[in-house]
């Protein structure tokens, strides 16, 4: 599970929100050449460090089996081939099923988690009931358990309920770890919304649930997006749960599907695996770039700003 900084209660207005990019640009203009040179070198090293595996994945996916197996591998494919990509859909492994299972389970888990987390987070943040505090921390405590600890009891329950090898089972399994995380994330975002706004809506004649729907949720939009993205990424990348709870290859999601399809006792199809890995990464990257504005705002909202 990814770790993120949960938003706190701090509030600020847009006017006093720090602008790191502007601050950096100002320092860039006022500092000397040596400082600028060091910054450039550090940035380049960090970029190479981060992007090299991605480049290697793409390069390998475009190489033939012979090029991949060279004792001194080349930096780039020569000649380049797309046969590995073609092989994904025409080969013996059900890559299309893997993709479909991943999309279905990740999207459904994200939707369920966002809806239930928003309700739970609102309750933890605004509710006035006995044992609210202990209950809130009990939910957090479930995050202290390693995912693997839940697996055996989940497996046995799913066996009895005939939920093994099913998307429903996987979604329930994913929710076991995404819901506590989402509830806490949403609690943090809702804590950051001034309660006076909700009080104003109550005085204006609204029920508590109407206030939640029409005032709190729109203001916690960044939190909803952040929760959805983190849950989607975590479930999309999850290997352990489908590997344990699903034992039919056609029912697998992408991570275990790739592992089982392209690695064998005597041979690993690195080209095919990298092509599949690249296609697996694309939806995540597209989703991430599409909503990064919300994501960044969401993560900074808790630390610095309110509404």
């Amino acid at each position: 599970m990814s770790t993120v900084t949960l938003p706190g209660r701090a509030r600020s207005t847009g006017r006093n929100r720090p602008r790191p990019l502007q601050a950096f640009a100002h320092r860039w203009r006022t500092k000397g050449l040596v400082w600028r040179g060091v910054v450039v070198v550090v940035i380049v090293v960090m970029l190479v460090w981060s992007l090299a595996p991605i480049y290697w994945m793409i390069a390998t996916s475009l190489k033939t089996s012979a090029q991949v197996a060279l004792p001194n591998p080349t930096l780039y494919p020569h000649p380049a081939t797309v046969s590995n990509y073609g092989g994904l859909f025409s080969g013996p492994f059900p890559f299309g099923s893997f993709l479909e299972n991943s999309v279905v389970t990740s999207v459904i888990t994200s939707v369920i988690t966002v809806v239930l987390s928003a309700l739970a987070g609102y309750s933890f943040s605004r509710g006035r009931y006995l044992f609210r505090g202990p209950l809130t921390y009990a939910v957090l405590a479930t995050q202290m358990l390693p995912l693997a600890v839940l697996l055996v009891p989940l497996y046995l329950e799913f066996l009895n309920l005939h939920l093994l090898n099913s998307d429903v089972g996987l979604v329930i399994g994913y929710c076991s770890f995404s819901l506590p995380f989402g509830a806490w994330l949403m609690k943090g975002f809702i804590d950051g919304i001034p309660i006076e706004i909700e009080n104003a809506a109550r005085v204006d004649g609204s029920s508590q649930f109407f206030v939640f729907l029409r005032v709190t949720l729109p203001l916690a939009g960044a939190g909803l997006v952040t929760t959805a993205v983190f849950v989607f990424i975590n479930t999309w990348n999850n290997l352990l749960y489908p590997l344990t709870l699903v034992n039919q290859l056609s029912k697998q999601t992408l991570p275990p599907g790739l592992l089982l399809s392209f690695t064998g006792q005597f041979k690993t199809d690195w080209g095919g695996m990298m092509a599949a890995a690249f296609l697996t990464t694309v939806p995540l990257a597209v989703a991430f770039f599409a909503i990064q504005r919300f994501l960044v705002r969401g993560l900074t909202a808790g630390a610095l700003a309110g509404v």
Partner: protein
Amino acid sequence: MASVTITEVMKKFGDEPVLQHCNLQVDDGEFVVLVGASGSGKTTLLRIVAGLEELTDGQVMIGDRVVNDVDVKDRNIAMVFQNYALYPHMNVYDNMAFGLRRQHTPKVEIAERVTSAAKILGIEHLVKRKPKQLSGGQRQRVALGRAIVRQPSVFLMDEPLSNLDAHLRAEMRGEILKLHRRLAATFIFVTHDQVEALTMGDRIAVMSDGKILQVGTPDDLYQRPVNRFVGGFIGAPAMGFITCDVVTVGDGVVLRNASAEVYLPPERAALVAQRATGPVSVGLRPDYLRLCGDGGPAGSGTVLRGIVEVVEPLGADQHVMVRVGDASLTAKLPRSDRLQIDDKVTLTVTDDVGVHVFDSASGDALS
């Protein structure tokens, strides 16, 4: 419109009492100000009337209806919050129309009421804007507009002017008073600023430590404070206090310490002598202190000997802080009294209405 009756209201947060035996009657159409220092319980009392806070004991009535168990949405009140609490994702029009839509008011009527309120408040050109595109004063007007469009039984205002600068605050004070006259509605207004309280309230309730200490007109509170706290809280600059013994001199009574002799009219002096059980706290209004002329104290014969500590010029007047014994008094003097720090001065009192005597231990008024 409706009256508000608060009877023996108590509120505890855990074991901590924050309101104790609060009683207040706000008549229909009256403008009552709750004033007190931070933590005095005035906002909590207002929130109890609104229904945003549950009371531990007591009763709140709006009109003839006991509202203890009535949900906030059903109390037909409007509230203006300290930080405006506008809905940031809605434009000004939607902010003001929100409550009316909840009441299922027809669209045409909503448009009429919002337009009319926006006109009254001078914000008709801002109705398409979001709150973040407005200045503090404009936001304040929107918050007021949101309250008045609903035509509620009671207006509750929780320090609505505290986030405005001094100039705008004075302007908005006038706007709210005009609004009150126009609507003839019941207003309960919370503030920690006694100038706001004195200038706006038909009556003022002074609160401290969760208790309502005194309810009265601004003149009542200024001229007849029931205890030392009210005397010190109401009036600017604040009343100064010196501790004196009650000494009988011949047929009369004088309040005296090493640096001061304070004389009262015979009937008030007799009352003090009768009620005092030890040293008394003498409160002196800065507006009634003057420098003694060469001919000694005029009128009452009161003298206060001290040393000038601070001089604050204010155009035609000046506030002069004078150390008298171990106490510090502020005198509002004409600027023509040329004073320097460390000058030795003798003050007197021009009118005995500027002198109040309180019990040193309990703080209760003795005269």
